[in-house]
């Protein structure tokens, strides 16, 4: 990607994997996924504005097996970016900067996002599946 002749700094594979590193990378990755997901939100609104047939078609696509897998991924991305985003906001305020706290809050983001995703999908399944 770089068209530079300068020497480059050591890349990812040089470092030992740590949870803080993974949460940071995942925050970016889920952010990119959610940026794509934002187009889906707009797509849904347009279908809702267009008419019943159009909206039901949109729902059908979301309710298909592939649609459900994508929705599972997007919902986890949203909850992860939410939990880890709140963690970053607290860190911006100067909280939790010691290394043990950093590691603990990293795990908290991961576990929190999984719990929220499970709760939402348990609700969806108990309510009789999507769409």
């Amino acid at each position, binding site marked *: 990607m*770089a068209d530079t002749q300068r020497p480059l700094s050591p890349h990812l594979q040089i470092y030992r994997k740590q949870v803080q590193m993974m949460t940071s990378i995942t925050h970016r990755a889920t*952010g990119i996924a959610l940026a794509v997901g934002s187009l889906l939100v707009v797509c849904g609104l347009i279908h809702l504005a267009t008419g019943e047939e159009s909206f039901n078609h949109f729902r059908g696509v979301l309710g298909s097996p592939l649609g459900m897998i994508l929705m599972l991924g997007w919902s986890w991305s*949203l909850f992860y970016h939410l939990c880890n*985003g709140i963690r970053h906001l607290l860190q911006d305020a100067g909280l939790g900067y010691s290394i043990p706290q950093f590691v603990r809050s990293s795990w908290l983001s991961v576990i929190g996002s999984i719990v929220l995703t499970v709760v939402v999908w348990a609700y969806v399944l108990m*309510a009789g599946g999507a769409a």
Partner: protein
Amino acid sequence: MSAKDVAVKDRRNPLKTARGLGSAQSGVEHWWTQRVTAVALVLLGLWFVVTVLCLLHADYATARATVAKPWNALLLIAFVLTMFWHAVLGLQVVIEDYVHTRWKEVVLMVAIRFLAVLGALAGVLAVLRIALTP
């Protein structure tokens, strides 16, 4: 005491410090806007998820009527605008960090802005169509 005796620690023009724009000439505006939109999205995002879950088994008329309610339409427009704004700020950082070929960087920067503005306008227009059509 001559000027020579005063230890000069900061040779910057005081005006530069007062403006606070730094070497990139944009100061901390990007950083702050990203945080403020993030806080807004914590609230709007949770509201959006709850609203969508409540409409899980609603028929078309109910879904449309829900979006058409003034408060829901207002919050939905706020959500769409903030979401695209935050997305552009975030994607900008990713592009700046990983795309080191200048022309590709500029093309991507412009492309995500075009796409985000189109997406935001389309989303707002859709909500307005639903809210204002009886």
